[in-house]
């Protein structure tokens, strides 16, 4: 199990007022994302636990793109990875952020 963590400053806080959201499942090729609104509004931190090593560069790129696209200020993101491909990771992050914003 490899543990990675990233911190980014954001231009804006994530919309909505939901305190936390959990999305996805820890299954092969899938992942679980927990989002908690516990940080200062201009800050986002992402913690990742993954069974696969050697993909730090890709994780860093996915996290940085997610922060740029969504501006998830105030949110701590915890990822429990089951060996998901980057497209699945991005999709889950976008879905979890929509839940935090109050989406269906």
């Amino acid at each position, binding site marked *: 199990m490899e543990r990675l963590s990233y911190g980014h400053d954001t231009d804006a806080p994530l919309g909505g007022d939901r305190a936390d959201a959990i999305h996805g499942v820890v299954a092969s090729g899938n992942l679980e994302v927990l989002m908690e609104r516990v940080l200062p509004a201009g800050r986002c931190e992402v913690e990742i636990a993954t069974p696969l090593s050697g993909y730090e*560069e*890709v994780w860093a*790129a*996915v996290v940085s793109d997610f922060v740029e*696209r969504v501006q998830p200020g105030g949110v701590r993101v915890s990822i429990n990875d089951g060996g998901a*491909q*980057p*497209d*699945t990771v*991005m*999709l889950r992050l*976008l*879905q979890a952020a*929509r*839940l935090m914003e109050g*989406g*269906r």
Partner: protein
Amino acid sequence: MSAADILTARREAGAKIASGKMVAAGDATRLLEAVLRPGDRVCIEGDNQKQADCLARALAGCDPDRVNGLHMVQSGVVLPEHLDIFEIGIAERLDYSYSGPQGARIARMMGQGALKVGAVHTYLELFARYFVDLTPQVALVVAVSADRDGNLYTGPNTEDTPTVVEATAFKQGLVIAQVNEVVDRVPRVDIPGDWVDFIVEADRPFHVEPLFTRDPGAVTETQILMAMMALKGIYAEYGVRRLNHGIGFGTAAIELILPTYGERLGLKGKVATHWALNPHPSLIPAIEAGWVEQVHCFGSEVGMEGYLAARPDIFFIGPDGSLRSNRAFCQTAGLYACDMFIGSTLQIDLAGNSSTVTTSRVAGFGGAPNMGSDPHGRRHPSEPWLKGAAEAGGATDPLLRRGRKLVVQLVETFGDKMVPTFVEELDAVRLARETGLDLAPVMIYGDDVTHIVTEEGIANLLLCRDAEEREQAIRGVAGYTEIGRGRDRGMVAKLRERGVIRRPEDLEIDPLDATRSLLAARSMRDLVRMSGGLYDPPARFRNW
């Protein structure tokens, strides 16, 4: 000896083994040894689906001292016997189109010089050459049943049979058909008996492969997201009514969200109404929801017979009540009468060229290069064809503009085991260089591709004005592959502003909608239920 004399000699030699036109399965090898001559050009029917397997075994059983030097012409190299005959010395040369299951062995044999390949063709090219310079002298075809006059009933998998028989029978060639059974009266005449010389009643029913069945249970949310982008960003934008789909999970996902997401977008009756398509089980929900007006088929699909027979309003059905397919006509329909091809591939390079060749396999072409190409012989206009041309620019006078067929590649940025889809150089190019081929086996050329859809977005290549824009548009949807991470971020941002690249959020697609609940059928069982119990999936797909 003239061709007519040779044909007479073949018939006389065969007649000694036959009773009328009938030959017992156990005598099939003797029949072939009697009628074949060294160096003959022989077509054995190996279609995408149905296989003349009894005759293939009989041919492989021939004595190479009597039957040798054959030049095989056939669309599919599918069965082991198709290649065994080259190792034994019965056959020498091969012209073909598709070799999916034998792709690795054919590559190995080519490398060892065990067979001489004339060329790897698309289906339409090979069919065309049957009438010009590769006309078979003997054809070994396959049908469901025959009567004693030799009339053939092919069942729903008519596929290549009419093309092969037409080319052979009218050019003094000999036609031998294997059938599952001999009957007093065939349900319908697909091939008239006077075009057929001998009938072999096979020892077991011919082999058919279910190639187009995709279990909705295996469709992923990423594929659903891509399907939503394609539907909203391409089908709706261009008003694509006449189309062909590839056989992957991505296009199956599109078929499965027509009655749900497509309905929500108000697209029913406006897109995806007329098809050149095999009878995909995953199209059942859209048909049942009234989306589809008409489908012409290259071949059939195992288990779909009952459903097809019940929908003569949609499919081409014979007077006997079963599907009539025809590969040559359907390929022509896909080429000239469809406004869009959308399908997947294994590798795409920075110019948009794509290939399904990997270094150790030569899978051949099949029909994709015809479906996925812009036919310069087309003249009739349609809305998507004209819009494509307008986006591509070119001739300033619209009256002189050539229309553009939409050729869409729908790919996930990574394939199985994190193998990237986007590459600097196609394996096909390396293969060509290493084996001394004149041309790399490119499936779809970059200049024919109009759009690339990945989970990251849609790249509209029609709107790119030079090679650099094209490269950055491709990099801009290549996700986290090395190609994608090598993008010029500033230039990709500009392309996005111009709408050359569109992300899900640019299309106002909510990622929360990209869930399996959007699929009109979520399992094989759903498909069976929605067909009114008429779809009868093969055992391996019965997972409930």
